[in-house]
């Protein structure tokens, strides 16, 4: 299995710099990071990839069983680390990937030196004594939303080609429609993202950790950021004056600066 091809691995930045591994969340692919990569690339060796089932990964490697649990996505991270023989990795995970990073670091702690959790949430659904911001019904609505946007007319969301590996000439169009995804795989990723309860895993974190949240984020509200911060002793919490769930897009300079400050400062 060629992991570089399978996970569409991209390596950029300073070849001899410390490694920063950027992991995208649900809904898009490694393109999510493109506005912060230039700032990181000056000092770091930046590794990007797509989870199997997202972006330009090899979708033939996808299986519902593996990608129905966050452990499957964590294995993608570890596979990439192993393939590139990465050590002392600063893992930067957006959204659900923040928790994927926690799982990967728990499994192979020797590989990871830092954890940056961008807009993390270990549990999206409200429970007694915990407020994640959503009900199970809300998550079902999202799944319906996914379905209704994959019907075909919404070109931005529907994949231009669906599982057509024997027509590589369509590859260019696929690039143009980034963030498009195979609906069945996206549905599994959505369910896994929003229905998993990873709160207990926060206790396994031992590396220096930055929790990077946005001031106004409906997906990961501030009380969730505070929860994560409190659950990881010694973690640092930085609140960006940004709106939405994707500060690497809405506030790229501030996001890159917070990451480099943390990585440089704790070195």
């Amino acid at each position, binding site marked *: 299995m060629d992991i570089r091809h399978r996970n569409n691995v991209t390596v950029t930045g300073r070849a001899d710099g410390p490694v920063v591994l950027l992991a995208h969340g649900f809904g*898009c692919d490694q393109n999510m990071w493109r506005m912060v990569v230039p700032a990181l690339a000056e000092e770091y060796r930046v590794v990007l990839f797509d989870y199997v089932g997202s972006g330009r990964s090899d979708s033939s490697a996808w299986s519902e069983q593996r990608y129905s649990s966050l452990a499957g996505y964590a294995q993608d991270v570890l596979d990439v680390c192993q393939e590139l023989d990465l050590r002392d990795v600063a893992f930067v995970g957006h959204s659900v990937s923040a928790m994927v990073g926690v799982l990967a670091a728990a499994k192979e702690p020797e590989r990871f030196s830092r954890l940056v959790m961008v807009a993390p949430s270990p549990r999206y659904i409200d429970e007694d004594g915990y407020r994640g911001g959503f*009900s199970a019904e809300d998550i079902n*609505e999202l799944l319906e939303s996914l379905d209704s946007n994959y019907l075909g007319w919404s070109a931005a969301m529907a994949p231009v080609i669906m599982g057509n590996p024997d027509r590589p000439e369509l590859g260019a169009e696929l690039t143009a429609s980034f*963030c498009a995804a195979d609906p069945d795989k996206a549905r599994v990723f959505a369910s896994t993202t929003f229905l998993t309860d990873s709160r207990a895993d926060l206790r396994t974190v031992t590396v220096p950790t930055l929790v990077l949240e946005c001031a106004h984020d409906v997906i990961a509200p501030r009380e969730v950021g505070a929860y994560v911060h409190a659950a990881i002793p010694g973690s640092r919490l930085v609140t960006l004056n940004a709106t939405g769930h994707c500060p690497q*897009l809405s506030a790229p300079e501030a996001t890159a600066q917070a990451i480099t400050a943390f990585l440089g400062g704790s070195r």
Partner: protein
Amino acid sequence: MCRTGALPDPDEEQDVDTTDAAFTALLEDSAEELYEQAPCGYLSTLMDGTIAKINTTLLDWLGLSRRRVVGRMRFTDLLTMGSKLYHETHYAPLLQMKGHVNGIAMELRAAEGARLPVLVTSKVKTSADGEPLLVRTTVFDASDRRAYETELLRGRQAAEQARRQAEADRERLQEALAVLQQSLLPTALPVIPGLETASHYHTASPDLLGGDFYDLFPLDDARWGFFLGDVCGKGPQAAAVTSLTRYTLRAAALHNPDPVEVLTTLNTVLSQRYSSGDTRYCTAIYGTLERRDDGFAVDLASGGHPLALVRRADGGAEYLPTPGGMLIGIMPRAKFTPASTMLVPGDTLLLYTDGLTEARIGPRRELYGDDALRAFATAQPSATGPQALVTALTALLDSFGDGLDDDTALLALGAPALAPAGGGPA
């Protein structure tokens, strides 16, 4: 409609005046009114989502006052929870990266707790130096469209479900057919001292029961009955006749093993069935093997079946002629032709169905034919016995590929060759 420098035709003058009047009336519709009363929702938001401007149409759909919305609410506040999640994970990132997003399905929290399915399109307005300033968004009512799409989606899901069910059914059916097919053939040929036996059954289609059959069974201590045949057609009806044929042959042979008598009994049974409306007949060779001091005596009879082939110990091969044998089961009285031969050590008797000789070969798809089969048997190495012959024929059948479109049964019986004097392995 566009007036050019050309002179108008005087006859059209009046029509043009009327059209102009209609246009003028339209132009009194101010830009503001066009915006406020447009048949779609309009809104403009700051880059953080705060609503800066919104038209009356959209406010009416939402059941909200301008005062409560402008400067106080973000676009996501207008959405249902599911759409809010979708907006944050898909719409906002796309908009930020591409500067525009077209026709995404979302749901608004409309007046009085209703949900309004909409299609949303946004474009970022940038300053002269490319700085994003605000987002302009249009919102179209998509209630009818969404209802239609929900139906489509349901249809697609139902079709997918039906496809899975059909596949499962087909698998079950194939399993049942395989079991049934096996029941028409002996699970193993009996072990007969001094006799080597081999058989092969090639199934042309896993979806269709074939009509070929064969068997080998004891008659008494020194005699055995054998047969191989082919019921016309395929499928369950053919299989039913195959089953009837097989048990009739075995029972008839126990009563009187004379080959012509056995086939005559089968003909009577099948022709009674034939006259009842199911016009199925078969071809078959039935015979007996009797142990002798120097090998096995073969007596057989054929009803319309391809000739039995005997490969002799010296490597030569010959057909056993049974001229004039009639198809079994069509006429109430039928004539079957007997033949006899002796199998000495090294001889092999081969029975087969016409799938083998009627296979199409080569680019011109010619019949494989009797001559080619005899040549094939002759060309085998000198020590070839029943098992080796069937193995070679199985490879031959495989080599036919799609030229072999019928089921094919093979049955080979023979006395093993004697070890060369003084030369055999210890």
